């Protein structure tokens, strides 16, 4: 029985390459596992793009091939990418929620003649690993640094940073520290806490003892943010006037229903809020909500995926459906368009997205739900993390 299944698979593999005018895009993301909601958002963004722009570029049909990668696992990531390229014959690789997974794929690109469009992974260095990488999401530096300027503008002098002890957390800490001290602020203490931290009360005690005016925090979106935000309120920090500053990962829209009242008033900087007020976004949100099913689950990875598809369509247009990775990437260098998040462009040198970063406050809508309300804009932000790398 096993053999017949294998044989069937082999036949499938062969037939897949039979249609010459179908261009395949391989998308790798966490479609199951603890981060399944982010993978769902990838798919929602892609589905929304296709719903609004059709599944055809010129004469070529576009087909998306999904592969599941539940957690950061570079070995599996590479195996999946290789399979997509070799077996499925994809012309474009896209998706990638975690940095190591994207890193694992970069060495393949040149030989495979395939561009990689990163739809989330947010470590600055990824784009430097191969000239065939384009990123349509954000970097942790990009979303964290403006918060330091917000803090200074609001008269905050002393800040304690509290981040999860892993790559993005450290990036976020560095981004904030660098900018905040450059702007004349003082970092009174920096705390890195293990990812597995469940009870944040002792951390809040540290914050209290530090005498800071504000706490800058970074945690990966998901279950722990709930405990963190609640601990912030329950330990009386909010009442004591210690401001809460963070990049938008902490208040991603899909976590807001759970955070509820506790998140009310939190300040975050981020590249996208589902509530962004523009025609483009209204159209996008409507399509993406339809795609994801439960409207409350829509959040930022969807817009990275949506714009990623935009870039891929442009690439296909430019190459006329021929497989030429370098030409495809060159075609989108400097490309500018109006994204649901606002005006964006692909930086010609770094191939990373230049975009507005918004200051948002968690607010209560008339229907009782919570949302990220944009209150200020930092226009055309590049990636300061890349500069810091040099």
């Amino acid at each position, binding site marked *: 029985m096993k053999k017949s*299944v*294998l044989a069937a*698979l*082999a036949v499938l*593999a062969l037939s897949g390459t039979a249609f010459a005018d179908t261009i395949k895009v391989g998308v790798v993301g966490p*479609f*199951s*596992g603890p981060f*399944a909601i982010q993978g769902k958002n990838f798919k929602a963004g892609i589905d929304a793009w296709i719903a609004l722009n059709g599944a055809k570029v010129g004469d070529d049909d576009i087909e998306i091939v*999904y*592969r*599941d990668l539940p*957690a*950061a*696992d*570079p*070995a*599996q990531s*590479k*195996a*999946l*990418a*290789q*399979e997509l*390229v*070799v*077996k499925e014959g994809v012309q474009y690789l896209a998706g990638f929620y975690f*940095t*190591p*997974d994207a*890193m*694992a794929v*970069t*060495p*393949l690109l040149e*030989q*495979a003649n395939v561009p990689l469009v990163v739809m989330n992974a947010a*470590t600055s*260095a990824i784009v430097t*690993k191969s000239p065939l990488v384009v990123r349509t999401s954000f970097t942790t530096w990009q979303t964290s640094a403006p918060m330091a300027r917000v803090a200074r503008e609001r008269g905050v002098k002393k800040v304690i940073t509290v981040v999860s*002890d*892993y*790559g*993005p957390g*450290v990036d976020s800490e560095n981004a904030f520290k660098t900018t905040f001290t450059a702007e004349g602020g003082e970092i009174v203490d920096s705390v890195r806490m*293990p990812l597995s931290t469940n009870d944040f009360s002792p951390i809040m005690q540290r914050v209290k003892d530090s005498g800071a005016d504000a706490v800058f925090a970074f945690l990966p979106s998901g279950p722990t943010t709930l405990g963190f935000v609640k601990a912030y309120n329950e330990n009386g920090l909010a009442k004591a006037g210690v401001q809460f500053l963070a990049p938008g990962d902490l208040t991603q829209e899909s976590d807001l229903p759970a955070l509820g009242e506790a998140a009310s008033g939190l300040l975050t900087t981020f590249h996208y809020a589902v509530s962004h007020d523009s025609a483009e976004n209204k159209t996008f949100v409507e399509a993406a909500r339809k795609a994801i099913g439960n409207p409350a689950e829509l959040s930022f990875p969807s817009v990275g995926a949506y714009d990623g598809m935009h870039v891929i369509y442009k690439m296909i247009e430019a190459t006329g459906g021929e497989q030429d990775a370098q030409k495809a990437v060159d075609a989108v260098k400097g490309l500018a368009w109006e994204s649901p998040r606002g005006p964006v462009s692909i930086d010609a040198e770094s191939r990373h997205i230049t975009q507005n970063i918004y200051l948002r406050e968690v607010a209560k809508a008339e229907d009782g739900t919570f949302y990220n309300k944009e209150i200020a804009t930092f226009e055309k932000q590049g990636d300061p993390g890349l500069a810091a790398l040099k």
Partner: protein
Amino acid sequence: MAAIETTSSAKPGAAARPNWLMRDLLGLAVILAVAAIGYFLFPNNLALLTRILGVALLVLSIDLVTGFCGVATLGHAALFGAGAYASGIAAVHFGITDPLLMVVVGAFGGAVAGVVSGAVILRGHGLAQLVLSIAVVHLFHEAANKASAYTGGSDGLSGIAPDPVFGLFAFDLWGRTAYGFAVALVVIAFVVLRLITRSPFGMLCRGIKEDPIRIRAMGASVQGTLLKMYVISGAVAGVGGALNAISTQVVGLDSLSFTLSAEALVMLVLGGTGSLYGALIGTVSFMWFEDFVSAANPFHWLTIVGALLIAVVLFAPRGLYGTALALVDRFRRTGK
């Protein structure tokens, strides 16, 4: 393959020798045949097959301590990850990019990790041992996360660019070289482990699993023997890790994780403990099944994998290989 294993020698002494030798050669032939079939049947899935072989080395290495020595561990990825990081760091920071040298470094790294974790884990028994192993793998994981200057932390250690094997076979996009390299490593490891498990030392380990008190009464040191096995096991896991680093060119923290440890143990139990064939069969069937189901339904495959595990406990309690053996055995007996 199952039938081969059960035809036990009836006569003692030299007359029986060709018998087990033949069986091992046959087993080896079967492994090579399966590897070749894999190559020709799935020429486009070699990356997955290579990954399976890397994990197979980890599962074999767990089998050495769990199946042959009776040491319960949920932390064996510490050894695998140590090998992966050792060879990765050697390549990125010290310019050791020859794949064979990287494998040696990985084996060494794994063996050192084997000494360290063995020294801790062997202090307990049963549940305490499980908990110690969990603590060890978490400490390794955390240490690698902290030492991000060397390991790249949670972003992973990237930039590993191994040279062509023997200067001739470059690691290509299709993963042919990596697959051939992996098959060679697994076959060598299998042969060596087969010899080790049949050796006097291997017998001593089996004795320890069955009755450590008797082994002590024979004047042998239980702790010393187990620690030695941990070193061997570490070297094997380290080779697996190195293979992973070479074929993936990135090492992530997941290679040191509790999850990988637990998954590998599940594969071993699935295949059947105490037999090298069981370890291989368990790895191949679990990972193949996982890949098949997760490609078929990326959203809900975990439920199906869970149901498979439950079904195995209910219907094949000794693991796939062990139960197949028992069935064949029963069939032969009733046939007589």
